[in-house]
């Protein structure tokens, strides 16, 4: 089913070939051929949303840099995972970089290993659609490092997800970052900055912490999670201006007008990564709505993440 254009006064445009149509078509063809159902993104041409760019443009791959599979303690996990892929289909998202998190933190070593097994299973259930982040609690030292080597080296995970067990500037985190440098993979760091103490996340990292970590490890590829995740996004963007090896993930439920444009102006469009973190229409909508060129939007939607993934060393 094609996504209809919403029209007002002027005659409704003829239904155009959408990314969704092409995705479904590609999936059917691929399934018939017995191969992974990942569309050839370079073949897709899509009309831009009204008012967002000057004409049709060639669209590349769209990668959600911040997604989650459902923990299996939830009875509906399988249906929930399927809904995530269906939502991605509807919104033209080709790939989702997923982690599975323990319901409660701090995660135990058994807890994060179990989550990562499920993420690996998700990569098998949705081949080519789900890319895996290895989630660890840095407090487990050697076990955390072994898990990262196993997930990245043997299972093909694309990076490491760190949550709020430790602030990212604590020394316990350093060996994790050093290993990601060795492997050539990014770290997606949960982060937010509020002007009050967040009681339930006392070791929350923010853009300032990430900038400090980036100065210590200029070779690291760090991603500041969900700049639209509820904290003061203007503060976060400004805190990261002089941290060139930190990329900003645009995900989060907040859709404040001007966020993406300010981020592009302050840190540059090459450092922005499209993400949803389960806020799907918010994630896509803020990129559609941003007053940027089609080329810049494509960098954010997938080009920059592709560039990051190509730096993998093994």
């Amino acid at each position, binding site marked *: 089913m094609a996504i209809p254009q*919403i029209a007002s006064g002027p005659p409704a445009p003829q239904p155009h070939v959408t990314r969704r149509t092409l995705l479904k078509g590609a999936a059917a063809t691929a399934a018939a051929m017995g191969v992974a159902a990942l569309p050839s993104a370079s073949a897709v041409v899509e009309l831009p949303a009204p008012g967002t760019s000057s004409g049709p443009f060639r669209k590349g791959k769209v990668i959600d840099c911040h997604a989650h599979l459902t923990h299996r303690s939830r009875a509906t996990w399988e249906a929930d995972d399927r809904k995530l892929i269906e939502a991605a289909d*509807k919104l033209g998202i080709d790939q989702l970089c997923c982690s599975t998190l323990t319901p409660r933190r701090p995660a135990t070593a058994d807890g994060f290993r179990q989550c990562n097994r499920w993420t690996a299973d998700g990569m098998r259930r949705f081949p080519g659609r789900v890319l895996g982040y290895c989630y660890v609690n840095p407090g487990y030292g050697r076990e955390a490092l072994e898990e990262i080597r196993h997930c990245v080296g043997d299972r093909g995970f694309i990076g490491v997800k760190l949550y709020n067990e430790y602030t990212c500037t604590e020394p316990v985190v350093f060996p994790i970052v050093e290993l990601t440098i060795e492997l050539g993979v990014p770290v997606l760091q949960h982060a937010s900055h509020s002007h009050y103490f967040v009681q339930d996340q006392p070791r929350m990292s923010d853009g300032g912490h990430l900038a400090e970590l980036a100065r210590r490890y200029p070779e690291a590829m760090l991603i500041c999670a969900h700049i639209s995740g*509820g904290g003061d996004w203007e503060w976060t963007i400004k805190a990261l201006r002089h941290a060139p090896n930190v990329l900003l993930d645009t995900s989060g439920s907040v859709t*404040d*007008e001007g966020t993406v444009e300010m981020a592009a102006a302050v840190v540059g469009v090459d450092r922005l990564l499209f993400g949803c973190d389960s806020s799907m*229409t918010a994630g*896509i*909508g803020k990129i559609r*709505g941003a007053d940027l060129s089609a080329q810049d939007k494509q960098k954010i939607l997938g080009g920059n993440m592709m560039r990051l993934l190509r730096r993998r060393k093994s």
Partner: protein
Amino acid sequence: MIVDVNAYLGHFAFRRLRHNTAASLLELMDSKRIDKAIVSSASAITYRNAQAGNEEVAEEVRGHSDRLIPFAVINPFYAGWKDDLKICHEEFGMAGLRLYPKWHNYQLSSPCCRELMNAATERGMVISIPIRAEDNRQRSWLLNVPDVPLEEIVELVKAHPKARFILLNGIGYTGCPLGRKDNGLPSNYTIELSRLSAVLANELGQLITNLGAERVMFGTGMPFKYPDPALAKLEVLDASESDKEKIRSRNAMTWLSL
């Protein structure tokens, strides 16, 4: 036709807004093919005298009444609110209200507020209530304004069955009576979609099932928010074209007699 029931003009105290003049908002609306928008003063959220914000909006929308529908921000605990209501309705042609009980520090159940509800209802004005102005996690260090609890809205719609309410910037309706089927509440309220999910949990679809498409309205929150996420919700919503048309414009047109 698209009618946005959740738009604003003017400045907000804690963040610079773009597209916040009539001219620039209309330009944004044109680019998104949004035909009409209900607008109120963003400044009046934090002005002590909200009427100054209403005056600014009245001035801004002059000459654009075919597309910008002004609503008044009234604080029923501020001196002269009855005069302000009369001026906003009769002189400024404001067809409804936007109320900020938490920002203006009053109870929806207070006698003054009930008096305002009754006065607005007698005038045939629609009463809209933003559950929040912005995400509380990004609040200034100066203040901590909570969202309006949905339980308070439940009591409000029960207490004023003849009033008509539009609930803006809310979420979690299906977790309380407001969004449940056969909830025993009067059908005197509609729910605006800008924060509702249209995929995954799909609260928007659930509300249509539980309450009917007649009870949901399109809104964006612009220029606080990008309009595109709300437009994307309509695109991906699994509903009939007839239901989408109601949400997009027909419900608002009916309520506002446009």
